[in-house]
C-alpha cells in the first residue's frame, strides 16, 4: 500500500466525498483518500478528521471501527485537521447526548442557548447556525495564510466548543456572542466551519494545510 499524503478518516457518518473533492481540486498531485483503515491512517503524512451528524453517534461509530487510537495518535504526531464534529470530538465532553469526547483538550461542547439568540437589532438568530459568517483570526497561523481576517466561511452547526484554555482558540465568530470557530495547538488545527464548502477562502485553507510544516 502506498503511503497516503492526506488520509481522510471515514467512520461511516455521512458523505466525505466533498472533503476529498476539495483536496483534489487544490492539490491534484497529492495522494488523498477517504479511509477507515487504522493502519493507513497511522502511516499517512497528514490526517483530516471530519464529521457530521450527532456527536454520540460519531463517537460510537469511531469506536465500532476501532479508529479511536489512530485518531488520538495522529493528534500527537502529524499535521491534523479537524472539521465540524471533528473539532468537537477533540474535547472532553458534549452536551449533545451528554457524552464524553476524545478528551485531547479540556473543555465542553455546548448548544447555542435559544434564549440568547438575538442580534443587536433584536432580530431572532436561528439554530442551527447555518450560512456564511465572518471568521476573526485571533492568532497568526500558517493555515490563515492568504486568507483575509474576517473572511466568510460556511457554518452549519447547533453546538460549539468552549475550550478551558482560551489560548487554544485561533478564531472566533459572533453569533451573537463570540464562539470558538477554530483552535490551534502544535500539529493540530481544527475548525467548526466547513472549508470544503467555503468557496475560495475554504480551498485556500485546505491548500495551506497540505503545505503546512508544523
Amino acid at each position, binding site marked *: 500500500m502506498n503511503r497516503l499524503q492526506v488520509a481522510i478518516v471515514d467512520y461511516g457518518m*455521512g*458523505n466525505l*466525498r*466533498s472533503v476529498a*473533492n*476539495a483536496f*483534489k*481540486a487544490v492539490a491534484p498531485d497529492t495522494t488523498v483518500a477517504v479511509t477507515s483503515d487504522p493502519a493507513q491512517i497511522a502511516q499517512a503524512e497528514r490526517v483530516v478528521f471530519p464529521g*457530521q*451528524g*450527532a456527536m454520540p453517534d460519531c463517537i460510537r461509530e469511531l469506536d465500532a471501527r476501532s479508529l479511536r487510537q489512530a485518531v488520538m495518535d495522529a493528534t500527537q504526531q502529524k499535521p491534523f485537521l479537524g472539521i465540524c464534529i471533528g473539532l468537537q470530538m477533540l474535547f472532553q465532553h458534549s452536551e449533545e447526548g451528554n457524552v464524553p469526547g476524545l478528551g485531547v483538550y479540556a473543555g465542553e461542547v455546548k448548544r447555542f442557548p*435559544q434564549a440568547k*439568540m438575538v*442580534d*443587536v437589532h433584536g*432580530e*431572532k*438568530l*436561528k*439554530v*442551527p*447556525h*447555518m*450560512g*456564511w*459568517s465572518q471568521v476573526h483570526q485571533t492568532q497568526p497561523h500558517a493555515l490563515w495564510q492568504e486568507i483575509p481576517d474576517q473572511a*466568510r466561511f*460556511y*457554518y*452549519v*452547526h*447547533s453546538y460549539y466548543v468552549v475550550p478551558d484554555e482560551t489560548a487554544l482558540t485561533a478564531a472566533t465568530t*459572533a*453569533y*451573537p456572542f463570540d464562539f470558538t470557530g477554530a483552535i490551534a495547538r502544535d500539529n493540530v488545527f481544527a475548525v467548526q466551519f466547513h472549508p*470544503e*464548502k*467555503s*468557496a475560495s477562502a*475554504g*480551498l485556500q485553507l485546505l491548500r495551506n494545510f497540505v503545505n503546512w510544516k508544523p
Partner: protein
Amino acid sequence: MGCAKRIIPCLDVTDGRVVKGVNFLELRDAGDPVEIAQRYNDQGADELTFLDITASSDNRDLILHIIERVAEQIFIPLTVGGGVRKVEDVRRLLNAGADKVSINTTAVVNPQVVEDAAGRFGSQCIVVAIDAKKVDNQPFEWEVFTHGGRNPTGLDAVKWAQKMVSLGAGELLVTSMDRDGTKIGFNNPLNKAISEAVDVPLIASGGVGNLQHLVEGVTVGGADAVLAASIFHYGEFTVQQAKDYMREHGIEVR
C-alpha cells in the same frame, strides 16, 4: 453579526437539462446543469439548489450523475430535491455529493422519513420543502400542496412547518405556488408567518422578478435565504448584481 443572507440560484432539472416553468407548468429549456452551476459559483452564489422535477426512476440516476459532476468542481453547499421517497434515497443523494436533501411530497405522505433521515444523517442536511397556496375554503390562510402542486392536503402551511421542524427538519424551503414564475415578488406574509413560527432557517422561493423582491424577501418576509431561478437563468441579473443591490439596501451578504 448573524449570517450573511444567502442567495441561492435554483436549477430545476429534467432529463438532464435545466428548465423553468410558470406556476409549475409550461417548461422551457435553460441549459446544461453543470455549466450553469459553474457560472453561478463564479458569480458568487452562496449555495445551489437542484430540483429533479420529473423524478421518475430513470431520471434518478441522471440527477445522481449530475450531482457527482457538480460536486467535483464546485465548493459551496448543494441541496438536491425531487422524488425523495425513502431514507435510502437521501443516502444516495448525499453520497453523490449533495450537502442537503430536500423532501416535499414524501414528508406529507410519510413524515417518518423526515424523522428517520434527520436522525440518521443529522438535521443539518434535511430540508423540508413546502409548496403552499392561498385558500378560501379552510380555517387557515395557506394550504400545503404535494405532487408538484397538484394535490391539496388540508394542512395548514404554518402548522405543518412547525411539525416538520419538530421531526428534525433543519431548514425549510417555502414556495408560494401563487407566485412561482410570476415575477411579482415573494409571498412575504406567508414567509413571515412561517419564519416567526420556527427557529430554523427559511428559504423563500417563488415569484422573484427583480432585485427589490430579493431585498423584500429578507426585510419584509424574514427569510434567511432567497431562492431564484429565471432572473439568473436568462441573464437578466448576475448573482453578483443581486448581492451588490442587497448590500446597498443594508442587507449583510457574503
